[in-house]
């Protein structure tokens, strides 16, 4: 974003950029930058805290009134409190609820995930009500449709895309996002709120859905289809969770 700020400023529009990676800001030197010490994905720090977000926003916009350019770089002084793990938080769906033996066929995956999804669904509906929306939908497929489609890749099939204008690899990629979003929205439906790290550890270590994404990743690595190989091997499972920890 720092480079894009320079490109837009060069077109005659004043810019200010909020940045998450300070070394990048130091190297790229945008005209006005505010580095914030928050996790990647959260440039305004605290979800659900208008007061905290406004502090960051006001600080960033205040740099527009500085006259000591052409490079102004400031640091936001405070961490976001909700990044710390919530003491005593327990997920409503835990590792002990799941079979240790993974499904061995597409049909078995579909059935087992269907059971898990049916347990997740009420909390997901509660999350939709609480947050007023869902972030799922990029794949254009309902979770069960996507699971049925994606499971075919596990046995070496390379099925045509069921979505107009979207390649099979992208259907797999964005369907994985949708599935994970469904789960991680659901686990945030009720107080106390887990930290982002707690959500990640729960999803990747205690759900069958994560096992399914890991199985897809392994299938992608050995696939002949270059798009599926790239999307599946690089963009389904974060490196810290390629094996259950």
């Amino acid at each position, binding site marked *: *974003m720092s*480079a*894009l700020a320079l*490109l*837009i400023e*060069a*077109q*005659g*529009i*004043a*810019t*200010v*950029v*909020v940045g*998450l*990676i*300070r*070394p*990048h800001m130091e*190297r*790229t030197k945008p*005209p006005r930058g505010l580095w*914030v010490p*928050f996790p*990647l*994905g*959260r440039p305004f*720090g605290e*979800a*659900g805290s*208008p007061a905290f*977000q*406004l502090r960051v*926003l006001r600080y*960033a*916009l205040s740099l*527009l*009134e500085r006259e000591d350019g052409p*490079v102004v770089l400031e640091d936001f002084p405070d961490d976001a409190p909700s*990044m710390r793990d919530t003491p005593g938080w327990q997920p409503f769906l835990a590792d002990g609820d799941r079979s240790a033996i993974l499904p061995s066929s597409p049909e078995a995956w579909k059935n087992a995930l269907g059971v898990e999804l049916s347990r997740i669904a009420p909390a997901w509906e509660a999350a939709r009500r609480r947050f*007023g*929306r*869902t*972030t*799922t*939908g*990029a794949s254009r497929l309902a979770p069960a449709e996507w699971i049925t489609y994606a499971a075919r890749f596990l046995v070496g099939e390379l099925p045509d895309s069921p979505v107009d204008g*979207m390649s099979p690899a*992208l259907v797999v*990629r964005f369907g994985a*996002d949708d599935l994970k979003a469904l789960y*991680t929205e659901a686990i*945030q439906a009720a107080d106390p709120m887990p930290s*982002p790290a707690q*959500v990640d550890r729960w999803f990747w270590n205690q759900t069958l859905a994560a096992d399914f994404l890991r199985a897809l990743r392994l299938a992608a690595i050995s696939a002949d289809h270059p798009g599926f190989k790239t999307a599946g091997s690089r963009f*389904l*499972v*974060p*490196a*810290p969770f390629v094996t259950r920890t």
Partner: protein
Amino acid sequence: MARMEEIPEPTREHVAALSCPELPGSPWVPARRLATSRIALLTSAALHPRAQPPFAAGSPEFRELSSALPSSDLIMSHISINFDRTGFQRDINVCYPVDRLRELADDGTIASVAPTNYSVMGSTDPLTMTATARVIADRLRQEEVDAVLLCPV
């Protein structure tokens, strides 16, 4: 946590190794006082209206986001899996603070929110985005925007 030492490996190594483009010059456009400024947002979260297709990885394209668009109509199709999305799931303002910006217009801190904000794919090489920046700047001028706040993920 976006302190480098707190980013988990191998994302930290990847981030550290990313090349930062060297662009000529040090452009500096004097900005108007905030209270008289119309402000736009530009997010690299690959946000777009729900009805639109996802961003393509590496695409220099941009999408227009009406300021009036409800957050329930926006989804994210960023290709990266290495950033937190739980905050976005709870509250879109954690990465696209359009409601907060509107509040600053309401209390007179800024003059107004631009009718249109913008979204790009953050993983795209910025050196391929010169034309994108030119078109966005033209549209910002057409809507009499004084300054733009760029928001990463």
